[in-house]
């Protein structure tokens, strides 16, 4: 009896630091975000005015917010689909095929992930430069250099895709390495028997590799949602500052703008709440939709 109690105390003491840290750095700030979204407050003075759900009411009529919502969803979908497809293909090639300089490619693909987003933005600024950028120079070979240059960062219909390209370039290496790690765990014997049965490489990929690394793919989907929301802020901040004329404004850049430069901290927090619920909901939905019976090998 006495021993059981001592054991409980012991467990409690061991768990306490983590729990306290979690409460201080996760629960209380999150709670505060929710609380602040109900106030009209500039961020500095003591004049906080409780306005109930008014911030959310304004939010529902804010066209700029919906524009940032659309942009974010577009980024999440495009970046996830393209990055996942490319990362899977590259991972399968690098782990299944015998290619000279495999490790070299692996490093090359991973490098963008080590670079800071600001550096990547500077690189892409140079690539997208309308007059002597890499992209327009290459395209100029085919369409003639006397045409009006394509404004990768100036055309409002194009600029969001310019961001997509930069984000995909940045993310591929990371997910490729993750997929490669789990592909390495798939037993060689399965592939051997499959090829004896006459299955081609593509069939092997869809019938053996993909199902066996499915749990890993599911996990990365959640990563995709979260990192697209987070990274898009950094890219927008460094590459376009939300411009031209708000065409690349995303969730977090709009929230930042409202909270820190438009003196409406409470409104910014209301956007934060929507982002929180949206990313939580989307991750849950993705998780639910992709649920499969895990395969053992």
């Amino acid at each position, binding site marked *: 009896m006495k021993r059981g109690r001592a054991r409980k105390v*012991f467990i409690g*003491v*061991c768990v*306490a*630091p983590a729990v*306290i*840290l979690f409460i*201080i750095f996760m629960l209380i700030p999150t709670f505060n975000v929710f609380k602040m979204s109900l106030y*009209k407050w*500039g*961020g*500095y*003075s003591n*004049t906080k005015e409780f306005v109930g759900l008014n*911030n959310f009411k*304004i*939010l529902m009529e*804010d066209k*700029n*917010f919906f524009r940032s919502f659309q942009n974010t969803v577009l980024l999440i979908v495009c970046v996830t689909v393209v990055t996942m497809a490319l990362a899977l293909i590259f991972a399968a090639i690098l782990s299944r095929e015998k290619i000279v300089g495999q490790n070299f490619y692996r490093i090359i693909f991973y490098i963008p992930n080590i670079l800071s987003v600001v550096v990547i*933005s*500077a690189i892409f*600024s140079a690539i*997208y*430069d*309308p*007059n002597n950028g890499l992209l327009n120079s290459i395209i100029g070979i085919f369409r003639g250099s006397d045409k*009006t*240059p394509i*404004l*990768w*960062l*100036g*055309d*409002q219909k194009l600029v969001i895709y310019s961001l997509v390209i930069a984000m995909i370039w940045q993310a591929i290496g990371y997910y490729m390495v993750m997929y490669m790690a789990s592909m390495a765990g798939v037993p060689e014997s399965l592939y051997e028997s499959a090829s004896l049965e006459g299955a081609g490489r593509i069939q092997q990929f869809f019938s053996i590799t993909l199902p066996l690394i499915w749990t890993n793919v599911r996990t990365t989907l959640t990563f995709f949602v979260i990192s697209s929301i987070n990274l898009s802020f950094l890219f927008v901040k*460094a*590459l*376009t*500052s939300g*411009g*031209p*004329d*708000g065409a690349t404004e995303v969730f977090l850049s709009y929230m930042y*703008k*409202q909270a*820190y*430069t*438009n*003196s*409406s901290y*409470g*409104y910014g927090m209301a956007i934060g709440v929507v982002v929180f619920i949206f990313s939580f909901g989307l991750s849950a939905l993705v998780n639910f939709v992709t649920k499969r019976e895990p395969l053992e090998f």
Partner: protein
Amino acid sequence: MKKKKIFAALLAAAMTMSMLAGCGNQDAPASNPGSSGNDDGSTQEQQSEQQSEQGSQQESEQGDVQEQVLKVAAFEGGYGSDMWHEVVAAFEASHPGVTVELTVDKKLEDVISPGMKVGDYPDVVHLATGREAALTETLTKENALLPLTDVLEMTVPGENVKVKDKIVPGFTDTLATNPYGDGVTYYAPMFYSPCGLFYNAGLFKEKNWEVPTTWEEMWALGDKAAEEGIALFTYPTTGYFDAFTYATLSSAGGPEFFDSCMTYEDGVWESENATKVFELIGKLAQYTEGTTVANANNDNFTKNQQLILDNKAIFCPNGTWLPGEMKDAPRADGFEWGFMAIPAVNEGGAGCSFCWFEQMWIPAAAENQDMAKEFVAYMYSDEAARIFAGSSAIQPIVGVSDYLEGDNKLFYSIYDNGATAVMGGFAATAPVEGANMLDTLCGTVNSIVSGDKTVAEWQAAVEEVSDKFRAAME
């Protein structure tokens, strides 16, 4: 076994303690920064040693003078930070017992605002309005500034002139110093700079062109230059259109009209005078260099400024810091900076130039308000003005522009050549969620140039946002 458990428990406890200690430590030094501390010794030996050294030094120097610490935060603009250190040293020398803790930074908002959120305010802040982080505007909207009316009545330290008599007339009468439009000054006007159009004077000589003085001549020049593959106009970012629109609004309808625009009067943006300005910018958009929009962001705006140096565009709106900003950039042969006011909007009217100036203010939550006011008053002393002018930072003090040399003389002489000085900015209101006047008025220019929006849509949007701010003004 048991020993091991006790050991583990101890470890866990130690971790909890250290974590709590880590949290607690943070505000210990912040709460009492100036005290000469021999207090909790051991861990902060170096720091306390330094502090006590400082303390004893001061004591020996000043005898019975009361010791004060004044926290000054200053934005490091294009003029550099040296002048601030010099001015603070001069202030300390003339005010025995006062120690100034100076913070100078290019991203001043990021440095001081975390402290301000927990109530640790600087006593004096030098930070202009119109910056991206809008800290000054936020504090204004929150009514967190100290009125400076009595500073204007103070005598300048070391001299026998009142502050208000030293400031050039007109500088404390606008919304740029009296943000609520009620005649009470909250911002002290500091370094000013005329904004206008920069161009390559060498290009005009080479091509035998006349510098245009009216918009008619401007369009004619634009057509002529287009044949040679040179665009008439470019802009660094749309942020520079604030000065441009303010000046043209005032030129179109006079100072009173400008004030009613800045105070969100009903229908003012759809009036005849405002329409002239919108249409003017709409036409200018057609003469704008093709790649300008793609580079009009914080990363690439210098590429747009480079267009002037490379003779690919003729005019660029900017302030007098431009030549300094581009001083290391390559340039066309025979390049020479030229600077002119914006031509009059109405035929026969005077040219106009927005006068941009930086502001100094005292937070209402400042601890040391009397000394802060003394510091602001000291800024207008000849001693301080000379130090600032040494770094070409010119204050609106009578006679200071005489200290200028070279290119700067040309820039500051713009008003001597008949151009009207326009000063001010949008009146402060309560925050309006989701609406931003400058974003709508200036940011949309990108869409006008790229053809994504029409001038009429733009004008309607500005009026709509203005309506929201009018409602928030009361």
